Structure formats: structure tokens, C-alpha cells
């Protein structure tokens, strides 16, 4: 299911992006950065720094107030509503609270997205099986979410995002509700997905994971990117190889 495919084209490109809410708050201020294909990027920063606003822009729940934002070469500021479903199918989304449907089994939760596309039962069964195998839940297809641990529920959510084979994963605090050991298990799933060539952007507060993984870190403070370290840590580390924006 996951085959590496790199060519370092920018999957995400923020160009002087501002996000100002109707009450006048600048959630994001003049943000510029790019994420090449196959990268794994941690978005770090205190609560209210602007991480969630950035994620909402990335999945086009909101539009930038100023500046331009490209994902897969599409300008999200001018993306028409009728093209939005197609765009969202190219992005795998994972949330802190899993967002599983409690009345559906694991299989049904993962199959849900494919049903929305009108895929045949045969294709759905095949794709769901592969996705569950990738996250290590092949034997739990008929269980309901309330029968699973937090880590297993997050694996189901990852399988649901994975089932479309999207080239980009966006995860908003995916380990926020999990204990350290389980958080690591989930991170390992993301690392496997990334190793297969899928670009991953993860907003997180998990210092241990960021520090141990040593991948690109974008630190946000008061709506601005204050640090972009290519092999970064959660907190500023003057010995890290990278560059400073401020």
C-alpha cells in the first residue's frame, strides 16, 4: 500500500499568509514556508499560538485573509467550493479526539470515506483491509470504538485517513489524549507512513516525540513562525543544525 515516491516538489507553500478573525485578532501574521514532498514537519508552540488556525487553513476549513496558500499546487484561497471534496480526498486528517462514529464498527468507520466516493464493496473491502493491516489492527475490524483503547482508536482514525492513499497527512495533536508509550506507538505509525513517501504535518505538544524524532520543527509564537529547524527539538536548541527566522 505504501510505496516511497520522492521528488521534493513543494506539497505545501505558504506565501505571506495572514489570518485575521472578524473580532480583529491576527491568528497568523505574515507566514511563509514550504514543505517539500515526503517531509515530516512538527508544528510546535503554546496553546493559542496559531497552530490550529494554520491546520484549519491547510484543510481549507478557512481561507487566508491575505497572502496565498498552495497545497498540491492548488491555491486554497481561490479554490471553488465544488472542487473542495476532490481536494480533501488528497489530504489524510487525524485529530486529537479521533472523531470515530460510535455506532459503526472499525471496518465501517474506515470504509466510511470510500462509501462517500461511491466505491464498490470489493474495492472498499480490499482498501480497508490494507489500511487496517498498515496500522496493526487487522483482527479488530468488527469491534466498535468503545471496545478499543485510546491508542487503538487513534490507529483506526489513521487507517480512515490512509484508506484514500493521500499524499499528505495532517495531524492535529494526534497523541494529545494518549499515554507516553501509546503516543510512541502512534508516532511509529506516522513514521512508517512518512517513510513510504507521504508528507506529514503534525501539530503537537509532545516534547519527547519531537526531541527524539529529530525532524523538521516549525515553532509558532503569536501567529508568527519564530523557528524553522530542519533537525529540530521542541524547545530552541542552539546546537541544532538549521536556521533561525528571528
Amino acid at each position, binding site marked *: 500500500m505504501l510505496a516511497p515516491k520522492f521528488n521534493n516538489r513543494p506539497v505545501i507553500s505558504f506565501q505571506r499568509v495572514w489570518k485575521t478573525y472578524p473580532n480583529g485578532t491576527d491568528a497568523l501574521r505574515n507566514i511563509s514556508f514550504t514543505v517539500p514532498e515526503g517531509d515530516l514537519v512538527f508544528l510546535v508552540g503554546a496553546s493559542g499560538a496559531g497552530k490550529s488556525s494554520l491546520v484549519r487553513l491547510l*484543510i481549507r476549513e478557512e481561507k487566508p485573509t491575505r497572502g496565498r496558500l498552495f497545497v498540491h499546487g492548488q491555491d486554497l484561497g481561490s479554490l471553488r*467550493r*465544488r472542487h*473542495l*471534496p*476532490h*481536494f*480533501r*480526498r488528497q489530504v489524510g*486528517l487525524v485529530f486529537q479526539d479521533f*472523531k470515530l*462514529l460510535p455506532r459503526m464498527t472499525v471496518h465501517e468507520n474506515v470504509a*466510511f*470515506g470510500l*462509501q*462517500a*466516493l*461511491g*466505491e*464498490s464493496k470489493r474495492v472498499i473491502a480490499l482498501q480497508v483491509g490494507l489500511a487496517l493491516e498498515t496500522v496493526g489492527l487487522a483482527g479488530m475490524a468488527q469491534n466498535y470504538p468503545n471496545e478499543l483503547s485510546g491508542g487503538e482508536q487513534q490507529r483506526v482514525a489513521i487507517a*480512515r485517513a490512509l484508506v*484514500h492513499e493521500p499524499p499528505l497527512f495532517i495531524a492535529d495533536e494526534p497523541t494529545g489524549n494518549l499515554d507516553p508509550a501509546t503516543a510512541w506507538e502512534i508516532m511509529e505509525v506516522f513514521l512508517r507512513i512518512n517513510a513510504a513517501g507521504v508528507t506529514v504535518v503534525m501539530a503537537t505538544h509532545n516534547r519527547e516525540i519531537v526531541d527524539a524524532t529529530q525532524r523538521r520543527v516549525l515553532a509558532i509564537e503569536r501567529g508568527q513562525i519564530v523557528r524553522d529547524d530542519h533537525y529540530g527539538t521542541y524547545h530552541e536548541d542552539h546546537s541544532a543544525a538549521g536556521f533561525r527566522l528571528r
Partner: protein
Amino acid sequence: MKIIRQLAFAFASAWQNFWRNLAVSVAAVMSIALILVLAGTSLLLGHALGQVLDSYRHRVSVLTISVADKTPLASVYDFGGQLQARPEVVSVRFITKDEEMRSFASDPRNQQLIEQIEGNPLPAKIEVTVTRLDDIKRIDALARQWRGSDRTDPTDYKGDFISNMVRLSTWLTIGGLGMLAVLTVASVVIVTNTIRTAVYHRRQEIELMKLVGATEWFVRGPFVVEGVMTGVIAASLALGVLLAAYRPFVQRFQAELFFLPLSYDPHFVHVLAQDLLGAGAALGAVGSYVGVRRFVRL
């Protein structure tokens, strides 16, 4: 194939949701059924009244002109010819004194009177049938100007009755349309609120559908199907109630108000079934579309 699978998903999802929120669904079905019973009743009453009015309209669209006894036959035919040439006149029939007498005598209620009278006091008549009620007045004026008409009672024209009937018919049509409009709005509001409740119960599912790339119509489809389903079930119930009541109502009416020309009309039952089922489906579709539209916008 994808469209068929998506339609199948919409139907399955609508059916599942209808049963899952059974209390809300039943409440909506009953409310809409009640409204459709009211609408159907007004249609049935309108149709019955229409039957009665049509019958009277037919009767009053015939004007009878009494011919004075000394009028020469040539003058009668000449006047009859003039009337027949008018575009608003459908037919002209001359009834001789003898024919009029035979008709009078054939009524058993007139037997006693026949025995008491000598000769034939009844005038000959010209019976004129017109296309529209409004034309009667013009023919009446012509008949009164004609020298051959009986001076004491030239025609049987009943001006007030005709104009009152036309006015009544107009007001009943306006009233019926107004009532249907009110009932339509009420139905749409009920379906809209029912679907909003269903949307609220399934808001997480809808949110997820949008995030995994479902189109607006894919999300909206099951709700619209559910609305149509609710409307059609309600319409079937309402139709059942109305059909069960229609024949006994007509029979009772015929027994008690025998002079009114009202009868059971099987053709109208088909029309009523089509109207109610169509209206139920349309109300369900419009109500659910309005109810779900705002929540499903991507």
C-alpha cells in the same frame, strides 16, 4: 455505477435514519398526514361543491323565453334563427304549446291542476343554451326587446342568483387556494424542523463526511430521501383516511340533501391520490432540502 452506489447509500442511510429516530419520524409523519388530510378535505369539498355548482351552472345556462300566444310562427323561427347565429349561443329549441302542456301534464304533482283548467294556458317557449353564464343577461335583454315575447313574464332569467353563484364560486376558489398555501408552508416548516433534528443527531457524521471529501449532494442526499420518504408515508396515510371517509360522506349527503346533485366520483379519487402523493413527496423534498442546506455547506 458510482452514481447507483451513491443512490443506494442515500436510500439505505435514509431508511436507517428514519427508524433510528423513530419518535421524531412518527411525529413528522403524523403532523404532515394531518395537514394533508386537511388539504385533501378541502380538495374533496371543493370538488363536491364544484359538482353542485356545475349542475346549477348547466341549469342556469339555459334561458327560457315565453312566446306570446298571438306571435306568428314565422316570427318565432326568424327570432330563433337570429339567436342561433350568435356565437355565445350553443343551441336554440322551440317548444310548442302542446309540447309544453304534455311536459306539464307528465308531472304527477300537476294532475289535480290539469283537471281544473280548460284549454291550454301555457305559452310556447324558446329554450336557449349559452356557453357562459355571463352571456345569459345579453340574451335576456334581446328576448325582452323582441315583440313576440310574452309581455307579462318574458323569460325565466334569475339575475341575482347567477351573479351570486359566480361570486361564490370565485371566493371559494380564492379561499381554497389560500388555505392550501397556509397548509403548504406549515408542512415545509414541519419537515424542515424534523430534518434539522436528524441533522443535529448526525452532526459528527456530517462533519466527517465533509472532511473525507464527500460532495455536498452526497451528504445532503440521505436527508432529502428521508424527507421524501416521510412525505410519501404521510400522504399515503392521509389518502387512506380520506378514501375511507369519502364514500360514506357522499352517501350520507345524498340521503339527507337529496336535492343537491352530489355523487361519488371514482375519477376524482385517482386525481386526489396523485395530488396527495405528489404533494407529500414535494413537501418532503423541499422541507428537507431547506433543513439541511445550511449545515452541509462545505
